[in-house]
């Protein structure tokens, strides 16, 4: 069974969490902290793109697309043919009757028949189901497509209200027309929006409270007050969030910045294995680093690594970039050999981070020319 990189990582995360659970519960901070650790770890991994999709404990299904949540009512709207939640423009919702229809002011319930007669002699003998920009095309031409919606909308069917809801009633608030009381009733009674939290707080006045904090000028005092409360509540909440970038407790600064440099070990950052072989057995033919008189030993056990002996100009070019952008292979080696200038190595159990991708391998063979 070929497991993807993402699946292996998820397995590792779960394995680690399971194994440390006992340590957390017995005398430790508890299960909740462990869950938080796991959640944060997984979130960071997803941000890096190392794991993908929603994490299911049993499997990793693909993210289900939102699907066509097209409300049925949209199909009934003659002029809404483009997007699901496209809010009709203000003109379409509340046709300024004198502008749109110089012929006749729209009267609810009585307009339909009369307006349908009109397109006969005109350019568009089509049915009102014609989509597109007919309503907003020309002044002076009767827009029968505008009229049917008006009486229909006056009845406040579900669809239009939902559309308005998605723009948080901004249009309606700005308009302040007579349609608002009916809209307001809808909002109070639907209870399906998150606004339902606010609806009980505010008396159902001729407005719709906004959640985005941008108060309109022509709001009444009560609404402005309420919004002010909301904003201040949000600000208070924000200020109560403890900062994580403040002063660092003593003794831990090194740990934060240098992974692997924990005080109990006292090893240099270059030391990848905790197996400190006593009396370092350096094999022949290797650049031996035995005794160093350099200032600034990293620790007591290991001699300095003499990093500066390398080609500084070549190495610095890459160190200037983010370390994460570096193409890195971490593995274990079985054998490294050299014949003249040809190097061969066999590696195992490695993680490669190349071209922003993580690739795992169980065996690798390398051939390099020096």
């Amino acid at each position, binding site marked *: 069974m070929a497991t993807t990189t993402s699946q292996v990582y998820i397995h590792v995360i779960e394995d680690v969490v399971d194994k440390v659970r006992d340590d957390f519960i017995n005398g430790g901070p508890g299960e909740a902290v462990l869950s938080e650790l796991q959640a944060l770890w997984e979130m960071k991994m997803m941000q890096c793109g190392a794991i993908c999709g929603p994490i299911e404990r049993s499997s990793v299904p693909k993210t289900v697309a939102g699907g066509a949540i097209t409300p049925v009512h949209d199909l009934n709207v003659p002029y809404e043919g483009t997007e699901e939640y496209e809010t009709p423009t203000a003109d379409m919702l509340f046709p300024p009757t004198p502008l749109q229809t110089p012929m006749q002011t729209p009267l609810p319930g009585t307009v339909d028949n009369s307006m349908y007669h009109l397109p006969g002699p005109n350019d568009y003998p089509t049915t009102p189901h014609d989509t597109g920009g007919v309503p907003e095309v020309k002044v002076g031409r009767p827009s029968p497509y505008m009229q049917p919606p008006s009486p229909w909308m006056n009845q406040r069917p579900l669809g239009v209200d939902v559309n308005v809801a998605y723009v948080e009633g901004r249009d309606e608030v700005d308009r302040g027309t007579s349609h608002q009381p009916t809209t307001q009733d809808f909002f109070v009674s639907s209870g399906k929006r998150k606004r339902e939290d606010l609806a009980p707080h505010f008396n159902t006045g001729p407005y719709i409270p906004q959640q985005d904090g941008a108060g309109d000028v022509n709001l009444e005092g009560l609404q402005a007050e309420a919004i002010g409360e909301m904003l201040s509540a949000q600000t208070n909440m924000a200020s109560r969030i403890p900062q*994580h970038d403040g002063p660092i407790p003593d003794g831990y600064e090194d*740990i934060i910045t240098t992974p692997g440099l924990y005080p109990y070990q006292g090893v240099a950052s270059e030391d*990848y294995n905790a197996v400190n*072989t006593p009396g370092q057995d350096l094999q022949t033919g290797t650049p031996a680093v035995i005794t160093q008189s350099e200032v600034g030993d990293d620790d007591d056990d290991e001699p300095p690594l003499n990093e500066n002996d390398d080609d500084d100009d070549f190495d610095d070019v890459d160190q200037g970039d983010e370390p994460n952008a570096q*193409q890195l292979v*971490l593995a274990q080696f079985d054998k490294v050999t050299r014949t003249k200038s040809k190097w061969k190595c066999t590696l195992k159990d490695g993680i490669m981070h190349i071209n922003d991708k993580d690739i795992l391998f*169980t065996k690798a063979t390398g051939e390099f020319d020096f």
Partner: protein
Amino acid sequence: MATFELYRRSTIGMCLTETLDEMVSSGTLTPELAIQVLVQFDKSMTEALETQVKSKVSIKGHLHTYRFCDNVWTFILQDATFKNEECQENVGRAKIVACDSKLLSQ
């Protein structure tokens, strides 16, 4: 049991280290417990690579630098090609860090 801290430099290891750092800074976690988690990560990662991964890779390139110190080989390659069953990647510069596999079995 000894572990290779090598894998802490990988993406998954760095994410874990950052998470642990944040939690220790905020006091949610003690440093000792954080270190225990990292050690467990070393073990779990090593085991997962042995058991769950099946793919093989071949690497070719020009060796710019080699270093062997403390039983750790570090190679810096130029114009390297990494090939496995599914795909091939070319990079201008790559760094390989490899620990001695025999040390874990000691």
